[in-house]
């Protein structure tokens, strides 16, 4: 019996050692040869959005760069990036991220980018940051289900109306994500002028949100709110353009309230210590190119970050085109620098307000 034991332990410990090594090892060797084969791990929000990115960003790129291939994964949780960087086992090469989050964590969680070869003249201001590149603009117009307010004369028309439960009863829907205007709209409804929004008065904003708290479905992600609109769980809501288009495509009648509309740039970044930093850096530059930007706008209904892009939009995408003729109101672009400096404070205050 003793012999069994002595034989068993080395086997066990060897097995353990292999497991530990496999867990720690980085995998392929880092190479400086630009033509070496690399597989880039591309992390975005999944669904139709990422499918479009595969078709528009990745497939054409692999044709011109035969040594590059892609692995796709989702969702792009910032906590995952932090965990990977902390444990020094970074698996993602490209990650969809809010520009403010990339800027705030520039050099710590995200690599500094060399985008000197990208021409900024045709790009919307804010498209290029030290640690990110913008790929599209999400507008978050206030909208309502047309069947919930069938009479256009009695339908909501302003940001104030979203917060007026007496005149416009009905369940509200909002995203708890800071990128979707949850802090801006209450201030706009409270009378703050669009050009006076930043620096945001968070406490004032939350006080205004208090007035609709009990009648609002706060969704933690876009999919949940999109689903809630489709299932008639909410009557009036603030949802990004890229989710309004599929809703309309599926036959949900939606009317946009073009008063003041909050929009935010979306971006991509490279996690600090990405195993294929050089190749990722080459690829990330292409995301703001006119063809890529036009392609994504056509596929998702988002607004272009590149003014040279000439997307051929579908009828439903035209209805949410924030820089197009449909928008008869004002557009407010989120201040990336303010968010980069106040991201933690804003997130903490909002989260505490939400769960309290």
């Amino acid at each position, binding site marked *: *019996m003793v012999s069994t*034991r002595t034989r*068993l332990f080395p086997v*066990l410990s060897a097995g*353990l050692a292999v497991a530990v090594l496999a867990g720690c090892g980085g995998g392929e060797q880092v190479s400086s040869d630009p033509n070496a084969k690399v597989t880039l791990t591309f992390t975005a929000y999944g669904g139709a959005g990422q499918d479009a990115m595969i078709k528009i960003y990745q497939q054409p790129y692999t044709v011109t760069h035969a040594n590059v291939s892609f692995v796709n994964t989702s969702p792009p*949780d*910032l*906590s995952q990036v*932090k965990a990977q960087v902390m444990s020094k086992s970074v698996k993602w090469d490209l990650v969809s991220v809010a520009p403010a989050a990339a800027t705030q964590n520039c050099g710590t969680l995200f690599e500094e980018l060399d985008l000197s070869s990208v021409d900024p003249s045709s790009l919307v201001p804010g498209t290029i940051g030290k640690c990110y590149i913008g790929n599209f603009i999400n507008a978050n117009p206030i909208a309502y289900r047309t069947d919930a307010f069938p009479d256009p004369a009695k339908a909501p028309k302003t940001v104030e109306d979203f917060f007026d439960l007496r005149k416009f009863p009905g*369940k509200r829907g909002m995203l*708890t994500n800071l990128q979707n205007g949850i802090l801006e709209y209450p201030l706009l409804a409270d009378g703050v002028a669009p050009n006076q929004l930043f620096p945001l008065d968070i406490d004032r904003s939350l006080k205004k949100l208090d007035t609709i*708290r*009990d009648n609002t*479905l*706060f969704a*933690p992600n876009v999919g949940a709110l999109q689903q809630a609109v489709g*299932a*008639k*769980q909410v009557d009036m809501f603030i949802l990004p353009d890229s989710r309004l288009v599929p809703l309309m495509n599926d036959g949900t009648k939606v009317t946009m309230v073009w008063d003041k509309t909050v929009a935010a740039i979306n971006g991509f970044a490279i996690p600090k210590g990405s195993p294929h930093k050089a190749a990722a850096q080459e690829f990330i530059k292409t995301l703001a190119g006119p063809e890529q930007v036009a392609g994504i706008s056509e596929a998702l209904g988002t607004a272009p970050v590149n003014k040279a892009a000439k997307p051929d939009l579908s009828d439903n995408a035209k209805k949410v085109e924030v820089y197009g003729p449909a928008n008869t109101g004002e557009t407010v672009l989120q201040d990336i620098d303010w968010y980069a400096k106040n991201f*933690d404070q804003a*997130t*903490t205050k909002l*989260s*505490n307000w*939400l*769960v*309290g």
Partner: protein
Amino acid sequence: MQAKAKQWLLVLPALALLAAVLLVPLGRSLKLSVAGGSLEHYKSLFTDGVTLTVLARTAATAAVVTLIAVLLGYPYAYLMTRVEPRLRGLLMVIVLVPFWTSVMARNFAWVIILQRGGPVNSFFRLFGWDLVLYQSVAGVAIAMSQVLLPFMVLPLFSALSGIDRRLLLAARGLGSHPVRAFWKVYWPLSRGGVVAGLILVFTLSLGFYVTPALVGAPQQSLVAQLLGQRTTQLLDFEGAGALGMLVLVVTLALVAWANRLGGTISAIGLVAAAPAKGARS
């Protein structure tokens, strides 16, 4: 001595797994939460004005869930001890169905049942009451009770089926009223099973994530949602570690306390013995 050592060898794989996936991460979490030797993250749990509210809400919800589960589970388990084996098997299957269904499917089903325009809402509308349980603590408690019912029924069944019914006959023979016989003889003997079920359901409720996240609302977050939010949104791994430790300590204290309430029968021992007893009856 030799035989003992060999028995330990059998436990080794399970212990190694537990150490690797439970103890090591737990230790790291603890280390993070006291980073720099400061208890600041623990202090802020009590001073941030939010954590205690959420903890109280979670405990209240868990208490309601446990109460519903024991009220539904006790008669059910009792019935299971009284019917013929074939019917008992069927009752067992019915209670185990939630186990076999995907967590997501079950919770989304509850969303559909409880949401606006769903069957529950439509029913209450018949009486002019536009009650929507989706995104409410009440809805979460109902859904959790269904999900956790097996954890009440199984230990109860194993305890109840071990009770010698001739004791009840003896009580009746000595002139006791049936209710009194139940209360004086049957109930004390079943108490170990009740405590086991209470502990299981209550502690599982404390850490429930999927049901409150899907059926509930962020405005009424439970502690697991708070943990998720602190890690995924605030990137506050230290604060989340402290919160996790607090919940763990509270849970362990509750288990220890309830275990003593169980009297001579150890609740945990009873759960461990459940399958063997169930098979014998």
